[in-house]
């Protein structure tokens, strides 16, 4: 049988799925043990027990100085920034994506502009944002919006343009006005794509968030990582990185479930 036709069974599939993760953990454990055997004071790859202690300290014991549970207060601060920025980006993308995709005049006006803006490296704008908007939340949220919104606008406008011309003509022959067609034909069909688009932008959004927090902040996951870096506290950095990854994975999964729950038809097409 050809390789392209051999498929794993359900059990094999799960085993294969878990394998790389287990391999990573084992590799970490072995290397860490080897280094610690060499030099018990090594800080680079702490033992699993040290990691667990650190997690316990950060998550379940109040900070002696502020009385806060640091992991949770950092998570709260970061997620507020992340989700407000993603919310704003989504609204901007929905509006501009639809008008650019549907109206030839707006497309002529804005499509090249948005394409150009999306080429500006957002991190290069960070100093300007800090100077203009100050060091508070506004500049961080703005950075994420500038980083993800243009790509989302372009993606959504493309999706609108991809709708078969026949569908729009059909809607016109049913007497729909531009507004009615936007509301009942185009909008419902781009919303699932909007969610997918949001999922794809989660990575960049986290990148910009951590970057902004690293440079100027007094709380947040990125802030903490860069703070403890000075003391080479790998026992805190590793769990934080894992936690951030986990948050992103969960958001990604939840958004996809949401799409299928709200737009059941969007999964039928794939049959």
């Amino acid at each position, binding site marked *: 049988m050809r390789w392209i036709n051999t498929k794993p069974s359900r059990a094999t599939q799960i085993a294969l799925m878990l394998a790389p993760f287990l391999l990573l953990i084992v590799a970490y454990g072995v290397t860490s043990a080897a280094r610690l055997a060499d030099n018990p004071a090594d800080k680079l790859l702490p033992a699993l027990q040290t990691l667990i202690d650190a997690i316990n300290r950060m998550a379940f014991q109040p900070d002696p100085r502020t009385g806060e549970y640091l992991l949770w207060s950092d998570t709260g601060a970061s997620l507020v920034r992340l989700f407000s920025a993603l919310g704003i980006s989504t609204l901007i993308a929905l509006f501009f994506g639809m008008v650019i995709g549907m109206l030839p005049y707006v497309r002529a006006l804005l499509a090249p502009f948005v394409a150009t803006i999306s080429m500006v490296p957002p991190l290069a704008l960070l100093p300007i944002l800090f100077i203009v908007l100050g060091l508070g939340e506004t500049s961080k949220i703005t950075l994420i919006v500038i980083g993800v919104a243009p790509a989302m606008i372009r993606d959504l406008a493309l999706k609108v343009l991809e709708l078969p011309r026949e569908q729009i003509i059909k809607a016109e022959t049913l007497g729909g006005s531009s507004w*009615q067609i936007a509301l009942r034909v185009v909008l419902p069909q781009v919303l699932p794509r909007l969610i997918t688009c949001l999922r794809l932008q989660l990575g960049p959004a986290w990148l910009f968030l951590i970057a902004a927090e690293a440079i100027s902040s007094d709380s947040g996951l990125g802030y903490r990582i860069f703070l403890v870096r000075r003391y080479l506290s790998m026992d805190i950095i590793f769990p934080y990185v894992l936690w951030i990854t986990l948050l992103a994975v969960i958001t990604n999964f939840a958004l996809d479930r949401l799409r299928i729950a709200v737009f059941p038809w969007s999964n039928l097409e794939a049959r």
Partner: protein
Amino acid sequence: MSEIVLDKVWKEYGDQIVLEKISLTIASRAFVALVGPSGCGKTTFLKMLLGEEAPTQGGITLDGVPLIAEPGPDRGVVFQRYSVFPHLTVLGNVLLGKVFKRSPIAARLFGAERRAAIDEAMTLIAEVGLNGSETKYPAQLSGGMQQRLALAQALIMKPKVLLLDEPFGALDPGIRAEIHVLMKRLWHETELTVVMVTHDMREAFTLGTRVIAFERPRDRPEERERYGAVLSRDIDIWPPRIAGENSIFAPDRDDPVIPLGLRQDDPAPQGDILP
């Protein structure tokens, strides 16, 4: 009434001439079947009737009034694909025309108005044989059912003209015969003028009251750009089919071929028999 008159219509795309000097009068309630080789401009012709494309020269009138330059509710359409909305259920698809008409801002209907619209939509859904599938999405329907849905969706607008672009081209012969019966009934019962593009000669002759053909008189590769297709055949079906009247030759069937048994060269020996 809905008489369509084309007066010396030309269509060019850039340098390429697609259609040349098409003059044609389509009588009210006619069923015109349009045939021709691939790429000769049948879809282009239909798009001009829709208002989606404008003729390069010449004019088209509907009931003596120049055609509005964009698609509108007086002209319904069914394409070979993409004619129904994948995000709406069968009922939602058929309702949409009503909703657009009654609710300009919210584009949704509520209460008694909605119930009345649903009643009307349900009647049409039953008419095209889709009762029981009201809550299904198009992706859950077969190709034939999707085309029935597209017909119901177009007919709820009570258009004067129905334009069909190879609507049944992708269906297998059995399903196609079934949908032909439906199509004939709808044409008899509704105030419709139909223009249907098809590749299937048999379909053209079983459904149409008149069969017209487009053809390029000069079709050598080097001439293809400079010469378009012209109206090359225009055949009135005999015995005439008249909308809303039974054929005098076979009162219980619409297909005159079988009972007459006269034309040995007619490629339609079976199928299509009304119950």
